[in-house]
């Protein structure tokens, strides 16, 4: 009802004019794109570029944030006074300063690297500059990279399936051999993929070289992307650390005592017993936090990383179709976050402790 009223009211004001503009060409550039894009691409494509960039950012920074979170969480429960103190300081600083300011800080730090004209490549081929980090890359097409990634993901999925169903079969050695074979095949396909997808007329390996005002060749990681990844991981890490810490606190002390009584080393107790249990305990809260953290990746706009939000925002300014674009923004995030939560919920179900009779 309300939606309907809104639609008629808006139409009467001439404020919405439908989604026809998506077909129009944008006329502006996007500095970082995973798929082909030029000034003559359509709005729809620009939005897709933004969506992919956001996903890319999420794929890089969410695992990193988790890693940092776990490390800090461990520091805060380690028993070493200094580590605990620093862990606490870390959380209090990075949790309590707005992410946008942290982003500016990291960005300024990266820009303070020498300019490409003065930068000497380390090890002959890696250059750290204020314009980005240049590393050697492969001259292959984007599609072949995509296929290779898919192959590796499929390999991982099959591997996990094997692990899950391993008790259905008796011979574990057999399964292990199968898994090794699986990985060999996957790597072979990956290499083949790159070989088939190499760009004609170029050497397979591409090294960065100084040319003109910038470096050329190889893979360049722009400081914008890096600043975003660092800022999100560091910021998200502070929140995740708190959750992990509460997880560690909730693991019964008897668990590590039992581990130690069995003669396991401190690290073994941590890696095999406390960490897996803590992660299971905090999984639901973590899903909440991941969904939130993914939304926090919409900071690129501040430093010119073209993420989903920035494309929408630019499109709003360029086309003026505010309400349609806000609608697309909502739909995009709904789709991504629902999928994220769905996947994580499946993971949660897969690793859930079995049975309810346990006495702990």
């Amino acid at each position: 009802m309300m939606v309907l009223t809104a639609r008629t009211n808006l139409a009467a004001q001439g404020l919405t004019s439908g989604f026809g503009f998506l077909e129009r060409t944008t006329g502006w550039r996007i500095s970082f794109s995973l798929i082909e894009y030029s000034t003559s691409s359509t709005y729809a494509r620009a939005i897709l570029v933004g969506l992919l960039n956001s996903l890319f950012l999420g794929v890089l920074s969410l695992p990193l944030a988790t890693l940092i979170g776990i490390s800090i969480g461990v520091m805060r429960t380690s028993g070493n006074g200094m580590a605990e103190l620093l862990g606490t300081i870390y959380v209090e600083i990075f949790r309590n300063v707005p992410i946008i300011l942290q982003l500016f800080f990291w960005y300024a730090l990266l820009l303070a690297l020498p300019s490409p004209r003065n930068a000497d490549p380390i090890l002959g081929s890696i250059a750290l500059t204020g314009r980005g980090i240049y590393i050697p890359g492969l001259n292959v097409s984007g599609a072949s990279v995509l296929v290779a990634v898919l192959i590796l993901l499929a390999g991982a999925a099959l591997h996990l399936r094997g692990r899950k169903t391993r008790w259905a079969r008796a011979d574990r050695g057999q399964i292990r051999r199968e898994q090794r074979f699986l990985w060999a095949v996957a790597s072979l396909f990956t290499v083949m993929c790159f070989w088939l997808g190499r760009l004609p007329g170029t050497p397979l390996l591409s090294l960065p070289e100084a040319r003109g005002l910038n470096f050329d060749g190889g893979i360049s990681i722009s400081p914008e992307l890096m600043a975003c990844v660092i800022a999100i991981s560091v910021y998200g890490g502070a929140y995740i650390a708190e959750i992990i810490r509460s997880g560690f606190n909730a693991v019964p002390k008897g668990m590590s005592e039992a581990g130690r009584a069995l003669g396991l080393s401190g690290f073994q107790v941590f890696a095999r017993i406390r960490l897996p249990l803590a992660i299971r305990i905090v999984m639901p809260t973590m899903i909440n936090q991941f969904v939130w953290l993914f939304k926090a990746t919409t900071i690129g706009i501040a430093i010119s990383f073209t993420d989903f939000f920035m494309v929408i925002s630019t499109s709003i300014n360029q086309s003026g179709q505010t309400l349609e674009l806000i609608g697309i923004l909502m739909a995009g995030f709904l789709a991504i976050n629902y999928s994220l939560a769905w996947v994580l919920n499946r993971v949660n179900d897969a690793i859930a402790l079995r049975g309810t009779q346990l006495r702990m």
Partner: protein
Amino acid sequence: ASSEVADDSRLKTVLDRGLLQCSGHNGSFLGFAEVNDEGNWKGIDIDLCRALAAGLFGTAKDNLEIVPISWAQRWPALQSGDIDVVIKASGWTQSRDTDLNLAFSRPYFISTYQTMAHAELGAETLADLGGGTLCVGAGTSTERAAATYLEANNIEAELLTFENGDELRNSYYEGRCDGQVEIAPGLAAGRVDAPNGAENHVILPDVIALEAVGIVVPEGDDDWLDIQNWMLSSLWFAEAEGITSENVDDIRANPPSEVVAKFLGVTPGYGERLGLDDDWAYNMIKEVGSYSEIYDRNIGSGSRYGLERGLNALYKDGGVFYPMIID
């Protein structure tokens, strides 16, 4: 007021309300909307709002409310009636004019986008920055214009867009970009306060784009649009006739010509046709001054920017502005 004004016109609503709700910014836009040490708005856009309020009500004091709004919010806010008029450095584009059912007044400012580069690069024109990186302000049409310009002139350069002017400038100074594309006042202000001294930066002469900035009202409200156009015309008229806020009283007491007498409301007619008081132009000039006063005060010789009039001068000084005929 006059019966000629349509009942559903925004003009009538505003006059009945006794208050003009004019767009502000959600931060600052150098030269157009800034906040002074006491938290009061100033800038070209703000002065135009004040002029409009003074024209409508005799004085802007207590009759004007600057409503802070963001860029994304300006069109919906105008349509929903949260604000009466958008004076917010908004360029006149076809899609806005047609798709969005907005109406633009005559342009009140022609912004030129130029490039500032590090002097050590020795660049003299934009073409010398080929292969480099340019930082561009996102938001208005700059971004698109820059891309078009580079393509048209066959210059290979990377473009980085920044939403926020401060960040744009910082990135440039930190060496992220070889050049910075921005609206001229912004460049000028940045150069003066460059951390390593103004002499280390040059503003390249290439004009990347022109954008005609106008006042925006909802389409189909001719009475209200007329007010905007005649307000701008009056400001230029005053400049052309040498009327300023200082001498306006003298001139009114002693009008040099019949047209000026009509303009300042000494003889009736100038306001009535618009549905306003006849001395509305006088009130306006008295309170904010002529166009040249507004320009000088905010971005011209009287400000830290010290920007030339250039295109924004009157036609007789080589610019593009002119008053319309008062009969």
